[in-house]
């Protein structure tokens, strides 16, 4: 087994886990804009819990994508081209969601806000579902030929695993978003989020458990099966902490669940990075899809410097904005007119 490609497989697993941990809760909070928040003030509470951090969280996705390109170009090329239409949907969702966060509060008009609220909620759902489907399919396989190109038309990627993976990330993100709101807000929103977290945990984690377990049946190893069991324990702990009102510990336990679950999934898939459902000889693996040792060595040095720095300043950001947000902190919407004399006079009357 080559050392550097293995290290980079682990690095990419870490990047995806970091992405799901961080953007997981802001995708969840985004979806909760519609089903959870009851009025405009609550929606603004929700947005402001993730306001300073969501963009930084999304960069984990770009870094996971970029690192896959740099370290495993064949994996990147095959996965992204095979999933052309679903990734287009993810892109559309991410575009609308990003713009919505910034533009929603820029015009003081209920209709305008309602449109962007939909963009945030639907964008978060589609992005979570699409990323989940793509990750599930890279572990369970796509119909690829010897060159790594998809056979069978634009929808040949579709399978039950795509749906399972999509639901897995949607479910996890919703739960993680509830846990995050319980931790980051105060008052009515905090209590409701905690209650929903306790009530919905078993349902919301079911699809991700289904994905992890079915992968163990396909290609599990002893340690990855142990990780699944440990993940279940972490989920029970999270449930129990939340029930007792220990929001911080519940949040950390759910984080441990993700870490263990993700280790079990990536571990079970290793050393295949993208199986071909047509012929196992066409499988893309850690050895046949990777870049040269020179490039991987260079990227390792960069990652060893860059990643700890990222973790440090992102952690600092969370520290700076550690205060809980509540309805009382939300200022009035800012409404203004053009700075034109005629308009100002009209307004005076």
């Amino acid at each position, binding site marked *: 087994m080559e050392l550097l490609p293995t290290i980079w497989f682990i690095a990419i697993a870490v990047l995806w886990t970091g992405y799901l941990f961080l953007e997981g809760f802001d995708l969840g909070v985004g979806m909760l804009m519609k089903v959870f928040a009851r009025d405009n003030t609550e929606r603004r509470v929700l947005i402001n819990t993730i306001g300073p951090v969501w963009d930084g969280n999304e960069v984990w996705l770009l870094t996971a994508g970029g690192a896959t390109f740099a370290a495993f170009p064949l994996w990147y090329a095959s996965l992204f*081209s095979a999933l*052309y239409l679903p990734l287009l949907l993810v892109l559309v969702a991410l575009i609308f969601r990003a713009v919505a966060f910034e533009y929603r509060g820029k*015009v003081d008009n209920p209709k305008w806000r309602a449109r962007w609220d939909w963009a945030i909620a639907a964008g978060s759902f589609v992005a979570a579902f699409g990323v989940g489907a793509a990750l599930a399919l890279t572990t369970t396989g796509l119909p690829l030929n010897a060159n790594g190109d998809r056979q069978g038309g634009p929808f040949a990627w579709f399978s039950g695993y795509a749906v399972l993976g999509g639901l897995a990330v949607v479910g996890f993100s919703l739960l993680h978003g509830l846990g995050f709101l319980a931790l980051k807000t105060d008052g009515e929103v905090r209590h409701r989020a905690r209650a929903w977290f306790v009530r919905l945990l078993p349902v919301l984690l079911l699809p991700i458990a289904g994905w992890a377990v079915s992968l163990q049946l396909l290609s599990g190893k002893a340690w990855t099966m142990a990780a699944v069991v440990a993940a279940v324990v972490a989920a029970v702990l999270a449930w129990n902490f939340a029930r007792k009102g220990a929001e911080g510990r519940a949040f950390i336990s759910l984080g441990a669940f993700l870490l263990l679950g993700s280790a079990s999934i990536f571990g079970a898939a290793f050393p295949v990075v993208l199986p071909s459902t047509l012929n196992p000889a066409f499988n893309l693996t850690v050895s046949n899809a990777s870049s040269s040792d020179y490039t991987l060595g260079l990227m390792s040095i960069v990652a060893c410097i860059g990643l700890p720095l990222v973790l440090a300043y*992102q952690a600092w950001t969370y520290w700076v904005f550690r205060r809980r947000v509540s309805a009382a902190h939300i200022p009035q919407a800012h409404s203004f007119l053009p*700075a034109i*004399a005629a308009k100002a006079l009209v307004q005076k009357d």
Partner: protein
Amino acid sequence: MDALEIARWQFGITTVYHFMMVPLTIGLGLVVAVIQTLWYRTGKPEYLRMTKFWGKLFLINFIMGVATGIVQEFQFGMAWSEYSRFVGDVFGAPLAMEALLAFFVESTFLGLWIFGWKQLKPGLHLACLWIAVIGSVFSAYFIIVANSWMQHPVGIQMIHGRPVMTDAWAVFTNNTALVAVPHTLFGALAVAGAFLLGIAWYHLWRRRHDGIDTVGADGRVIPGEAAAIPGRDRNDHTVWIRSLRIGAVVAMISFAGTAVTGDLQGKLMFEQQPMKMAAAEAACHDGTGFSVLSVGNLGSKNCNDIVAVIEVPGILSFLAKGDFSTEVKGVNSLLDEYKAKYGTTLPDNPIYGDRAGQPIQYVPVMEVTYWGFRMMIGFGGIAALAALVALWATRKGTVPASRGLMRLAVFGILAPFGANAAGWIFTEMGRQPFVVAPNPDPSGIDQVFMFTAAAVSPGVSAGEIMTSLVVLTAIYAVLLVVEVKLLVKYIRGGVASSMPELMHAPADKSDDGTPPGGAPGKPEGDDVLAFAY
């Protein structure tokens, strides 16, 4: 159209669009950081107002750059999988580094800046903006390193038919990148300069039009106040005249910068991609003359119908070599060289699909290269000249009362955008038919190149790419309308649109916020989120 052509249109449309947001982000970010530094150092309220107003417009635009940037990274794998497979060992690294070392910095510290007005001490808050802006400059560097490798591949060896990186230093100090980075950054500053100039001109004109500012017998401005309009006080006049002057100076300096770096870039390009430069000149025959105007069928690609109507002898040699007499090779003689070196027909390889065996068109679309080159220089020059005129016209403290001139200044904002777009279209289309151009350096790696025809994803159907082209173009069009409307709304609102505190307070004070170097303010309070969502 087949998959290749649709994918090329998609890449062109999405990239040119993305690169409308990006230069404004980089240029305006630098300008806002300088202005906030001035506020931090002097404590003058007009600098706080300028920071908040230009900062708000910066953010409205920034998010569009972020949203459209994700498409760029995904697109290589989605539509250009063969390209990604071929170049991944070299090309992926700068993209990954951009995300890890630059984009993380940019987005995290910008979040801190947006939300940290009260939570952070003023110095630290300012530092966050500087870090974010420097992050965006590094971002530009990494992307241009990646692009420059396509223009001029270095630092590699061919192993099993693919270029493999052997010298990272050569890749990251590619001379093509080292001149393209400052050229791009000056281009970005030119956009910011015209943006400040046009908008500040509008407000100064508005103040005169509304009778707030008047002009004395000596022609000097007498700033006034309008109590009925939030933020329209005497200080407001200072905000706009200073913004206008900063914008004009930035526009002129950046034009000089693009000219100097562009000249260096041109000289390199005559060596690295002679066909691109010959096509930029529509120069069919070897010679020394620079064409001021050529007519005829530029698109004919065979050079026989093109007539140089006005030609200045010697200038082309100066652009290429720095003297007035060296003969510069024209399209016709280069064509023979290219055919001898890289073949006359596309190889019989399934990777080329229906195009296998077809003759290779080594001459790029000359209408695009010829006019793209001239539009880049023309728009850039017009903006710089306008900035000079604007400085002179406002020497007595305000703008002329003419509505037409105001409109000209506002529409002038578009000129540097046009120059940026024309420059990129020229350099990318001028590289065709190669996606990775061959490097003709004597020490170079001559046989490392890739035809664009081989780069597209073989497994993706034309219908899929057409779907994404239509969907993305439609969304981009809608979002452009939304962005411009929002920008116009905030611009017309004046400084008060970005400073809610100006709406309720007496106009003559209370807008200087936290004094620099003073207490960071209470972490509690209603106004904590006022700048945010």
